[in-house]
């Protein structure tokens, strides 16, 4: 089985994948961890599954690894169905969340484990080369317990990578490391991925980690894919209120479509007319949320000229916190909604005092819209 599947990076395709725990669909205690997911991970890409705990990302990963049997659906690797293969018959390897290094074996034997099972040649040479790649040369004789967290993480990576998997699965691989080490390992993982050019599927709840490392991100929630896109698209054009709030901060205003003007969509929110690219309209429904990122908002004094074509709002400063590179303001609109504004510290304006009346304006191109299903507060509470 392994022989004809082995090869360089493979495309991973998941179709209609469902995982239900605890009995039949009718059972009261049934819990749907993965709810009909379909996605394609291109060969050689760095793919991230991002979402809060319980969103089904780890279960999906475990099904790809073969550690969990799907209730229904298919998993294809370069077009070959691997859905029901045993974990040891899949050309896929995993870097486990807590590393799962064998405590009774040395670092060398941990890394050699997969090669020995496959009766491969030149084990010693290949293990040494792999330890060098993860910068652990000379550590072969040690036991996992004698290594630091970061070193254990590298052993786990080496142990999986040495088998030249067609897809490498990483289950929160950096979760146990401290912030500084995590940043360093993120870069390291990127470097290694470009060196071995294997397909990486990375599961994380850290949006910054996903944005830094991945080519494509699937944002997951309640066992479904909320949005699948590149980091830039996810950030600039979130498809749902959940994505808009899970990746960075967003200001969402309740709006109603009133018409179009060329390529622009006209929306009215609490009596204020706003414009945004018609291409950003999510659905035919007239009711939607209009969104804009806090750093896209320009804050001026009332009465100051607004650049032609910009959207504009009046508001009052209610709070400010100085953060060095920027100042975060909370402002209140006439309809008592609080919005966040990041004002970059250019050294021109002073701080605006609480109670100051201000005017906000922004480029319509920086405006996105998401469907109005549920309140944005509800999704925020989930985070």
């Amino acid at each position, binding site marked *: 089985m392994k022989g004809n599947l082995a090869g360089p990076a493979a495309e991973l395709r998941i179709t209609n994948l469902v995982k239900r725990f605890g009995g039949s669909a009718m059972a009261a205690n049934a819990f749907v961890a993965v709810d009909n997911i379909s996605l394609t991970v291109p060969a050689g890409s760095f793919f991230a599954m991002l979402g809060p705990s319980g969103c089904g990302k780890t279960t999906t990963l475990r099904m790809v690894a073969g*550690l*969990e049997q799907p209730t229904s659906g298919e998993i294809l690797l370069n077009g070959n169905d691997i859905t029901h293969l045993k974990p040891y018959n899949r050309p896929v390897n995993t870097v486990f969340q807590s590393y799962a290094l064998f405590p009774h074996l040395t670092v060398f034997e941990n890394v050699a484990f997969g090669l020995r099972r496959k009766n491969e040649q030149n084990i010693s040479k290949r293990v040494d080369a792999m330890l060098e790649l993860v910068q652990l040369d000379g550590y072969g004789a040690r036991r996992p317990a004698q290594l630091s967290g970061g070193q254990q993480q590298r052993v786990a990576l080496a142990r999986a990578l040495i088998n030249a998997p067609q897809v490498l699965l990483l289950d929160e691989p950096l979760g146990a490391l401290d912030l500084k080490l995590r940043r360093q390992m993120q870069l390291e993982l990127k470097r290694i991925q470009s060196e071995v050019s294997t397909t990486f599927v990375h599961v994380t709840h850290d949006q910054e980690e996903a944005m830094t490392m991945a080519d494509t991100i699937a944002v997951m929630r309640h066992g479904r894919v909320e949005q699948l896109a590149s980091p830039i698209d996810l950030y600039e054009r979130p498809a749902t209120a959940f994505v808009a709030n899970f990746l960075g901060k967003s200001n969402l205003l309740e709006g109603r479509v009133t018409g179009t003007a060329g390529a622009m969509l006209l929306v009215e929110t609490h009596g204020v007319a706003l414009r945004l690219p018609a291409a950003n309209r999510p659905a035919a429904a007239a009711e939607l949320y209009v969104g804009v990122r806090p750093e896209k908002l320009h804050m001026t004094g009332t009465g100051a000229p607004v650049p032609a074509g910009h959207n504009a709002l009046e508001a009052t400063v209610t709070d400010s916190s100085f953060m060095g590179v920027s100042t975060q303001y909370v402002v209140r609109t006439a309809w008592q909604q609080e919005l966040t504004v990041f004002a970059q510290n250019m050294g021109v304006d002073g701080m605006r005092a609480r109670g100051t009346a201000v005017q906000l304006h922004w480029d319509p191109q920086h405006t996105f819209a998401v469907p109005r299903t549920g309140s944005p507060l509800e999704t925020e509470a989930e985070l």
Partner: protein
Amino acid sequence: MSPVPPRRGLLSGTAWMPYALLLPGLLWLGLFFVTPILTLLSTSLQEGSISTGYRFTWRFANYTNAFSDYQAQFGRSILYAGLATLLALVICYPLAYFIAFRAGRYKNLMLLIVVAPFFTSFLIRTLSWKIILADSGWVVGMFQTLGLLPPGGRLLATSFAVVAGITYNFLPFMTLPLYTSLERLDASLIEAAGDLYAGPVTAFFKVTFPLSMPGVVAGTLLTFIPAAGDYINVRFLGTPSQSMLGNVIDSRFLAVLDYPTAAALSITLMFTILVLVGLYVRRAGTEDLV
């Protein structure tokens, strides 16, 4: 990250696998534990004598007779076992505490030193106490000098010797569970109690002791159960006037060959202990002992 509900392990194999693993051992327990207890139950309701043979007649009088004839021994079994358990707890708790919190890197060595003497045979240890508590020995001499014992008073052949012997013999059964639960205890919890204005005594009774409860429960059970059925200590260190239920069962079964009475006493002892253990475990709130 995601909550993974309990699932069948990858190595579960086929559905009959667990039964295949369980069968030989459970068969052994069924054949040589459950059947004997049932046999014992039936024996306890038989009547007759060794010369005429025994017949099963639902003779419940065996129980009432056995209980009225041997209530003193019955009471002593529970009393001596209870006293010994309490003494063992008082002796072992500080010892286990010392090893868990003060022995540092010598923890395992200290534990070994504490347990090693118990590899000397139970009987040989008990005989050794006979020498130590002998009438002409230094312990009796010291007790007499201190006025704890009248001149000519004895330690051997008294309840004191029997309880001391039982206490001694079951010490490891108390020490090991206590040590295990204390060793697991996070020392920073005690520090936190101190930080929250608890003095050493309060911290001990409000934090350390409650958290070591699983060890206390396991240790007291492991000491009390064998102690209640013991008859060796009485035989070596006591006299017939200290005899416990075990001594009666032993002689009824092996010397007098009065099987129904012996069986009735065994069953009574077993159920008394089961009831006491059940009540105690419920009271202590630690039901996941096994």
